């Protein structure tokens, strides 16, 4: 088929050696001469009018260099990814636990901590609003302005009311999902320094170019005077898209002119970083007697907590993915996003799609049950295909691999699950469930370009400069693979500088599973521009038109006449003699349209990833423990640029998805988070892993770099719904709330048998 040199190969990660030797520098590992250490004073109430912050005693403490409040902010005191509704330091009202009131820089962390205790704060507490339904009442306490309704969405396709009249079967259910924490192992940290008129911040982040804009606005500086460099970042999963340490560091270095370090504690990270939006979802789905879906109606209420963060994007994405990867001719969805005094919700692997998949996948199984069909068949009948229309009336043209993921997953399931038998003790029940998903790559219905620069050096090696932040998923490696393949050079000779606003162009956020597709295309375009210059010279040297010339293994040769060839080095020597430089730049913006504001019809994404998981669980009916035994995870990624890294994403997503479905139980009481560390917010360990069978399906996307789409978020999404369906298969109880704690399972069993 193809004979790629680098694409599809599991080459060694660019960041591999620095990470196994411990030399990789994360933000808290960076140190400068006469560096100060920062600490943030945080609110211990969730809703209050701030009257006074007195820093005079703290300022007098020996070793303290600065104590700053909102009054010390030279520029804007409102930040936020989409809506600027979050203060850097509170100036009027506290809206949640952990809101920042003052920030201190001192010679040591201990002195900074001591100084926090000397700051006097006065406030008038206000009544709390912590429940979304209460929040929408007219007389509720208001978090911002005069309404808690942050935003709404309505999607209308076809005529739902008429369509339900024609349905032979209808299922209705209400589903609820909880908060979840990213629990990246590295808590947020950053270091700042001012030198030669430039403020530089090294931060643990997923989007340094966004950070730079926010810091510049807060300090009232032009963006060219602020440089943000992504330090090695210890996981993100969406939780490092919001501003954390960056603005505090900027302010402290602005005022002291000294380097400053700020490293969050785990508890601080947990309290103030965004969480997954809790959803309440009412679903009604109808089909004809053959199982063909005819109509779906849904209503969502989502809790954004005290600030908006990514809320407008999460609600949009949840709504446009609400059907799952199925064609439904009539759809109506209404969704509301609500402010409360609860912890702030934001981006978390999947952006609202893991929540809706809990619902749409169980609806599918319930319909199948009513129709006496098997869950596989109802999915095959309704799965999106080339020519299908999505719920936004986007006609799907290319790279629609959901049916193939279903088929491949089933084949594997027959081999490793369905044909296996075992003796079970009387308290154990086993079951198998299916979860399918689709996921639009990139931001929903919005322009979201990324760009890259590139230079080929005189020895044929290449430096790529791309804004894209590698948070461990491996984008640096993927970008280098794409460039190496395009230019016909060795992967090892391509180096990348990434995510440094001082030397790389904007790559946008590392979110929405977008970097392979979008930054990958930008890097490919930059490489193609450079290649064009090489080809001009190769044409001359080989006396053949460039259409006939292939650049591979550091040689250019004429197609079909491989003896007529010239080395890359010879081409480069000729370029040097002629004064031709081998440079390139490129940017890529996926082809989307805005969505109609009243019906959300349009083309929100240029391409979609698809997946099917088959999961086998074992339920202990005495304790309620749900154990995942096997996960078959078939993912249509378009093209795997690096197979091992794609598998790594799938395996990691599976374990995180199991946490979402079963284990991770974040507790909030009266707006206060009770689970602040790994001791009570549990995540799975190496002892808990099931057998995972990743299956890579490559339904190539014609607009993707070498056909690639994305896999980061898709890996997680089908897991929890497949578990819920498997548990139903095992014990006959349908659970509509996650996580599936022991108590919930036991209660479900008791209700069934009593």
């Amino acid at each position, binding site marked *: 088929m193809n004979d790629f040199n680098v694409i599809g190969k599991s080459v060694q990660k660019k960041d591999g050696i620095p*990470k196994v*030797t*411990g030399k990789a520098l994360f933000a*808290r590992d960076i140190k400068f001469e006469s560096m100060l250490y920062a600490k943030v004073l945080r609110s211990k109430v969730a809703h209050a009018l701030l009257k006074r912050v007195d820093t005079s005693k703290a300022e007098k403490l020996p070793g303290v260099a600065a104590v700053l409040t909102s009054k010390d902010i030279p520029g804007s005191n409102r930040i936020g990814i989409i809506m600027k509704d979050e203060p850097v330091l509170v100036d009027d009202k506290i809206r949640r636990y952990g809101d920042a009131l003052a920030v201190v820089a001192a010679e040591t962390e201990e002195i900074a901590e001591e100084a926090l205790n000397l700051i006097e704060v006065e406030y008038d507490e206000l009544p709390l609003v912590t429940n979304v339904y209460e929040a929408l009442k007219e007389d509720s306490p208001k978090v911002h302005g005069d309404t808690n309704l942050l935003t709404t969405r309505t999607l209308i396709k076809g005529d739902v009311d008429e369509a339900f009249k024609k349905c032979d079967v209808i299922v209705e259910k209400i589903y609820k999902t909880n908060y979840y924490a990213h629990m990246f*192992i*590295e808590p947020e940290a950053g270091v700042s320094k001012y030198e030669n008129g430039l403020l530089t911040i090294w931060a643990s982040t997923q989007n340094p170019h966004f950070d730079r804009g926010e810091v510049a606005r807060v300090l009232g500086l032009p963006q060219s005077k602020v440089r943000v460099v992504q330090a090695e*970042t*210890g996981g993100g999963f969406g939780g490092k898209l919001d501003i954390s340490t960056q603005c505090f560091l900027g302010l402290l270095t602005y005022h002291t002119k000294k380097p400053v370090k700020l490293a969050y504690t785990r508890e601080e990270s947990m309290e103030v970083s965004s969480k997954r939006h809790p959803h309440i979802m009412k679903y009604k789905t109808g089909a004809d007697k053959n199982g063909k879906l005819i109509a779906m109606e849904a209503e969502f209420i989502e809790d954004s907590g005290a600030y908006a963060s990514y809320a407008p994007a999460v609600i949009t994405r949840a709504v446009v993915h609400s059907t799952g990867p199925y064609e439904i001719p009539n759809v109506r969805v209404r969704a509301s996003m609500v402010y409360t005094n609860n912890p702030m919700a934001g981006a978390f692997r999947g952006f609202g799609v893991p929540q809706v998949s809990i619902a749409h996948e169980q609806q599918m199984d319930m319909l199948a049950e009513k129709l006496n069909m098997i869950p596989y068949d109802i999915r095959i009948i309704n799965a999106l295909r080339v020519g299908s229309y999505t719920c936004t009336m986007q006609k799907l043209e290319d790279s629609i691999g959901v049916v193939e993921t279903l088929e491949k997953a089933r084949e594997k399931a027959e081999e490793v699950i369905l044909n296996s038998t075992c003796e079970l003790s009387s308290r154990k029940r086993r079951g198998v469930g299916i979860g399918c998903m689709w996921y639009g790559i990139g931001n929903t219905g919005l322009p979201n370009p990324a760009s890259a620069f590139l230079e080929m050096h005189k020895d044929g090696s290449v430096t790529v400069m791309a804004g894209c932040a590698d948070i461990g998923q491996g984008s640096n490696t993927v970008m280098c693979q794409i460039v190496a393949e395009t230019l016909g050079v060795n992967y090892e000779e391509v180096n990348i500088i990434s995510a440094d606003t001082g030397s790389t162009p904007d790559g946008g956020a590392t979110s929405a599973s977008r970097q392979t597709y979008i930054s990958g295309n930008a890097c490919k375009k930059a490489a193609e521009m450079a290649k064009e210059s090489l080809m001009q010279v190769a044409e001359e040297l080989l006396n053949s038109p460039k259409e006939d010339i292939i650049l591979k293994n550091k040689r250019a040769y004429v197609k079909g006449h491989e003896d007529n060839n010239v080395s890359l080095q010879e081409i480069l020597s000729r370029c040097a003699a002629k004064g031709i430089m081998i440079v390139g730049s490129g940017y890529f913006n996926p082809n989307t349209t805005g969505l109609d504001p009243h019906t959300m019809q349009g083309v929100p994404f240029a391409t979609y990833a698809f997946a099917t998981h088959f999961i086998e669980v074992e339920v202990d009916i005495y304790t309620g423990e749900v154990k995942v035994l096997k996960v078959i995870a078939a993912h249509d990624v378009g093209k795997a640029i690096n197979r091992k890294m794609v598998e*790594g994403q799938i*395996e990691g997503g599976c374990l995180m998805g199991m946490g979402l479905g079963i284990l991770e139980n974040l507790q909030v009481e009266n707006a206060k988070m009770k689970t602040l560390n790994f001791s009570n917010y549990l995540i799975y360990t190496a002892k808990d892993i099931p057998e995972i069978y990743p299956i890579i399906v490559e339904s190539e996307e014609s607009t993707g770099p070498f056909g690639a789409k994305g896999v980061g978020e898709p890996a997680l999404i089908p897991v929890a719904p497949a578990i819920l369906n498997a548990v139903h298969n095992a014990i006959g109880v349908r659970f509509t709330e996650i996580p599936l704690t022991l108590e919930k399972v036991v209660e479900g069993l008791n209700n069934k048998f009593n």
Partner: protein
Amino acid sequence: MGKVKVFFKLNGEDVSSEIDPSKRLLDVIREDFGLTSVKEGCSEGECGACTVILNGEAVTSCCILGAQVDGCSVTTVEGLEKNGELDILQQAFLDAGAVQCGFCTPGMILSAKALLMKNPNPTLEEIKTAISGNLCRCTGYKKIIDGVQLAVERSNGDINE
């Protein structure tokens, strides 16, 4: 509070340091000796990112005071390379694709190292148990376990200390 002087072996070399008795081993290693491979992820011994090998045992250095290691031998990941060559576990982690964000990696390698030093041919369950105190949020552990198994295969029971 007065300082105490401790003498210990750090990555095979005799070292000493005047330390505040309340200072954690984690901070002594990172600040006084500049070995930043030892990471702080939770400060309460739950995540394992600060794992070091202390007298042959994998321990979380956030839960040990610096003063406690007087006379002991401490190994961090910086001490694994020999003559510029990666340790067998480091190479196996690379080859197995066991590294994603890398924040848990040094601790994970050290927990595996401590296991192999005592038990050069561990079973799958023994590997899982040995690294179960090291949390990883990226990989799902599968390729980390593959890495340890690959090292076991390649070492043929011959593990350097």
